[in-house]
């Protein structure tokens, strides 16, 4: 089986879907001729033609709304927003149009669109290239939100997202494109090649939306994470020296609440880790759900390890980024009582 990094795996997912379904289209800023700023769409225009893989003007609101119209007529647009930080001009289209079309037409029309956007920090992007805006979208009913953490999942989940009949916001942790990152910027960069999840079949396979993965089984505490924070959580668990169970949510909505509940019922403790700012972050929703379903199993308050409630700064990247030390501290806190 070929070894792929996340860029190649995502590229392969789109290649497979372009080949299987003539309704699939890929577009966005710099995705066609240039191949994408992160090279995720490299070669796709050459292979599948300008009619199906093409550049758009810099107009996020317009290009996502155009996708809704295409989708309503039966096409399956896959739109790249160059950075998640640039999705805001399109939020109206996503929230008011894409997410609501099915409901307000009583199932007559829907928007089977996929919005891909690189998210997260760790690349010195400062405030306009580092954000994790997933909670804005999980707050909107009618949208699905996916965040993979490795090449194998990335491909299988992207294929599911494209095949899904509902609008899916697909965030790609850009710090993971070329290798796993455990939150230690001072250590040498690793490539995906040594990682188990870099073995990616060339052809079609789908990972259903709404299934979490237990990436490290354990009995003492449950850590809920997604995207880059899965790797950071593994490092944090190691550093805390605690028998932690790490769950990669993979899909935030639909959420695999059963896997979460089973784990917390077993461990009695829960740490939630995400890069996004804390207040009204997705961790708040997770904490509420765990509390509702596992209240009598909990032996300690749920702990959140998150980005600070500030814009993402230019200079303080590693003060801001919730690295393994903060996760380990969170684990210790959850274990203290």
């Amino acid at each position, binding site marked *: 089986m070929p070894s792929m990094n996340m860029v190649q795996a995502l590229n392969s997912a789109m290649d497979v879907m372009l080949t299987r379904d003539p309704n699939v289209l890929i577009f966005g800023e710099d995705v066609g001729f240039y191949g994408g700023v992160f090279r995720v769409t490299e070669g796709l225009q050459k292979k599948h033609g300008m009619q199906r893989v093409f550049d758009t003007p810099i107009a996020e609101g*317009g290009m996502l709304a155009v996708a809704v119209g295409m989708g309503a007529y039966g096409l399956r647009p896959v739109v790249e927003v160059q950075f998640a930080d640039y999705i805001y001009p399109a939020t109206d289209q996503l929230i008011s149009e894409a997410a609501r079309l099915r409901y307000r037409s009583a199932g007559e029309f829907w928007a089977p669109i996929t919005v891909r956007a690189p998210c997260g920090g760790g690349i010195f*992007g*400062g405030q*306009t*290239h580092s954000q994790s805006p997933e909670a804005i979208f999980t707050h909107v009913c009618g949208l699905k939100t996916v965040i993979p953490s490795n090449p194998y999942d990335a491909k299988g989940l992207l294929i599911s997202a494209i095949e899904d009949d509902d609008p899916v916001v697909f965030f790609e942790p850009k710090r993971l494109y070329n290798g796993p990152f455990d939150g230690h910027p001072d250590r040498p960069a690793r490539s995906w090649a040594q990682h188990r999840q870099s073995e990616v079949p060339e052809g079609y396979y789908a990972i259903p939306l709404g299934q979490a993965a237990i990436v490290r089984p354990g009995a003492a505490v449950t850590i809920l994470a997604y995207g880059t924070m899965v790797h950071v959580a593994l490092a944090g668990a190691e550093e805390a020296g605690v028998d932690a169970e790490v769950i990669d949510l993979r899909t935030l909505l639909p959420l695999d609440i059963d896997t979460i509940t089973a784990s917390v019922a077993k461990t009695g403790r829960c740490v939630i880790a995400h890069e996004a700012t804390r207040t009204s972050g997705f961790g708040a929703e997770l904490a509420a759900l765990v509390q509702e379903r596992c209240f009598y199993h909990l032996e300690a308050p749920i702990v959140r390890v998150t980005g600070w409630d500030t*814009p993402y700064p*230019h*200079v*303080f990247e590693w003060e801001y980024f919730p690295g393994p030390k903060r996760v380990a501290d969170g684990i210790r806190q959850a274990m203290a009582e």
Partner: protein
Amino acid sequence: MVAKRKAKPVKPAEPDVTPETLKQFFHDMLLIRRFEERAGQLYGMGLIGGFCHLYIGQEAVVVGMQAALTEGDTIVTSYRDHGHMLACGMDPKGVMAELAGRRDGYSHGKGGSMHMFSREKNFFGGHGIVGAQVPIGTGLGFAHHYRDDGFISVTYLGDGAINQGQVYESFNMASLWKLPVVYVIENNRYGMGTSVDRASARTDLYHRGTAYGIPGEQVDGMDVVAVHHAGIAAAEHVRSGEGPIILEMLTYRYRGHSMSDPAKYRTRDEVNRVRSEHDPIDHLRQRLIDGGVATEAALREVEKKVRDIVAEAAQFAQDCPEPDADELWTDVLAEA
């Protein structure tokens, strides 16, 4: 292919440009060029990190425009903003320190290359979101109009930004309310890796305000004097209450879009041709010498002066401490 572009002369009579002004242009453009080259080097050395967009090649645009303005006029631009800040008279030391994420940078290290501001110099930022500065500049124009203070807003944007919807919302409001705004489109032929003809239905951009009744002119943005003349005429137009105007500056960016740019979207030959045939600084140097305005020796003096300013800025940035970690938490809201 990018369509052949030809600048049309601006209509009003060309005011004279004094020898002193020409020499100042030379100094100001060279300062931007050398500053940017140094920033590029510091980036290569790891002293500057993150996103960093150099202005090399486009110096004539901002220098010619800024010299056409009055103190008190307001400026707003995109993330490719170092040249604009220097042309506004902001301190190169503070700009370089911000690039390096240092305490005495204009945004105390929190903003970085794309996000710097100066109330003193009426510079309303560097904005990382493509197109976002256009309505902001329109709002500045509204404020001038409302206060009737006689000042104008100069709003810079790129050929890529021109396709954002909010630009047209702004054009309509600016024209409807007769706001004193000069929209300066810096058409450097590319938005990141996408050439104008791949992104725009028509490659001439100066008429993008036509539907709103906004006049537009195309200007040779590699010729600082042409820019300056167009700038004076445009400023006069909007200052006199005629409403907004658009100037499309035909220019070129020599370096990559940002510091990591695989440069697969244009040929080396294309870049070299513009550099050798249309460089705005070489062009002015020749003009100064041929016109007997300055001697080679005098220009070498300017070179030296500029080198010293840039060296001082670089040293300042390197010596400046990082901000205190508590700074991370300040300025989120008016009160912490």
